[in-house]
């Protein structure tokens, strides 16, 4: 039985709409489920108090501090190093076997499961280097985890800058450093920014790699050598152990809103840059 092409199209497109609808429904459901149950518990008290009774009562203030600290430190370390590496690889070296190897290696490391970084961090930073379970161990582990991604996305962004920009810059008499910083970087910034924002998102949600490197202490980390529990890990513990569902959902709500906020802020920042910066 031959079906008219028009009808096959109707069925196919209809089918795809169903798929898209299901996907949207899943998204709305997940977000709704978490936020509806969690937001009512996100009070000012919740955000500023410490947890009591293993998290059954109280708030998540130490977790917020720990998360900010660990993620902030990780990106603070990885971003400059990663972007610098990308600049070096694209602008200061010629394409060679070595650069191919480095690029492939970075791609592989960007794809390695985060738990392996966690295992490495636990054995190397926490035990061998004696840093113990601390913000520092966690941040260093996360920094290594996002470094390959930052290098690769920055590299792609820099390579996407048209050669003509560079030629014109040289033609106007700039040095290589001036050309790189004032011309190339400025136009590659949105791409580089995206890579960094992606890394921040990945770090904040990361649980496996921080479990044993930053530990899961319930108190405030006061120095970089203290252990701290991140929001994602706190949610995992609360939900898994059945300690407090309402607090678990509240923690998840804070986490999701934070990630949303970061993405929106980055988007807004990029808009401002693209409007201003590129020639």
């Amino acid at each position, binding site marked *: 039985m031959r079906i008219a*092409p028009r009808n*096959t*199209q109707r069925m*196919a*497109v209809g*089918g*795809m*709409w169903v*798929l*898209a609808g*299901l*996907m*949207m429904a*899943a*998204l709305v459901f*997940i*977000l709704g489920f*978490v936020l509806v149950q969690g937001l009512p518990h996100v009070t000012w008290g919740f955000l500023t108090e410490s947890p009591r009774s293993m998290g059954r009562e109280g708030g998540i203030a130490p977790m917020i501090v720990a998360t900010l600290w660990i993620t902030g430190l990780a990106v603070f370390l990885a971003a*400059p*190093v*990663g972007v*610098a*590496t990308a*600049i*070096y690889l694209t602008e*200061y070296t010629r394409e060679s076997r070595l650069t191919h190897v*480095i690029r*492939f*290696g*970075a*791609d*592989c*490391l960007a*794809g*390695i*499961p985060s*738990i*392996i*970084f*966690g*295992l*490495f961090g*636990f054995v190397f930073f926490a035990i061998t280097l004696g840093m113990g379970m601390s913000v520092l161990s966690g941040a260093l582990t996360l920094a*290594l985890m996002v*470094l*390959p991604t930052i290098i690769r996305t920055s590299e792609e962004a820099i390579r996407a800058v048209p050669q003509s920009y560079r030629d014109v810059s040289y033609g106007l008499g700039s040095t290589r450093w001036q050309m790189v910083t004032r011309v190339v970087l400025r136009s590659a910034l949105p791409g580089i920014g995206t890579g960094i924002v992606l890394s921040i998102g990945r770090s*904040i*949600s990361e*649980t*496996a790699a921080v479990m*044993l490197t930053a530990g899961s202490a319930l108190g405030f980390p006061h120095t970089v050598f203290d252990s701290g529990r991140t929001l*994602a890990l706190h*949610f*995992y513990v609360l*939900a898994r152990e059945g300690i407090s569902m309402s607090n678990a959902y509240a923690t*998840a709500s804070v986490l*999701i809103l934070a*990630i*949303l906020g970061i*993405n929106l802020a980055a988007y807004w920042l990029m808009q401002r840059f693209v409007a201003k910066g590129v020639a």
Partner: protein
Amino acid sequence: MLLLLALSAISGLAVITAFIFKEGVPIIAKVGLGTFILSSDWYPGEGEFGIFPMIVGSLAVTAGAMVIGLVFGVGCAILLTLFSPPKVVAVMKPSVELLAGIPSVVYGFMGVVILVPFIRDYLGGPGLSVLAASIVLGVMVLPTVTSISVDALQAVPRSYREGSLALGATEWQTTHRVILKAARSGIVAAVILGMGRAVGETMAVIMVAGNSLDVPHGILDPVRTLTSNIALEMGYAAGDHRKALFATGVVLFVIIMILNTMALAVSRRRAGKVQAR
């Protein structure tokens, strides 16, 4: 200065790679590569390190996730680029990105609370299963597959579409006979990247897969993946046991290397095709 930073980054990454291989390879040699990969006996307390059930587990769960990722992801990509009015795109695109922003532990928990009981009560088995893990991973991998597929579809020259329509084909015929074929390598790349992500997910899988040590015989059976194995045991593994976990890391590293090489080959072919035109 730049050189210093770049060198430290590269050497840092090299150190990790070297460390993982240095810890893992000797134990593989000691136990025997064949035994390590093919034996189903994982009894670290007695010095037996066979990761076959975990390899099957990771493969099964990833394959399941990619089915979902492919169907939903490419389907949405096609819709977004070819069949949706701009207003719908404005809603769907950010939604897909939103899906990417939800932490994996939340997905895992949703799986435990909603999916696992559903499977247990209506489909059978313990609920903690390959199916549950595949669905959860599939949803997590969706945004990656969708956005890369969108890029691939948008890279197809307009002339292809216009030419096909001018010859009297319908939109859908154009899509599946012309555009999809042209974008094939890009979509394959999307799938490969999605697979890489699925293989690497740990926490969500621990929550919904059951973590049993048996080779799964059906999608309703519980399963343990390579990453879950490392996560479950790394806290207390010592000596040979810890080395065996690093060895599992080596296996994962190799899998990712294979996937990346495949992606590279696919994208090279795509570049070659465009130039040959």
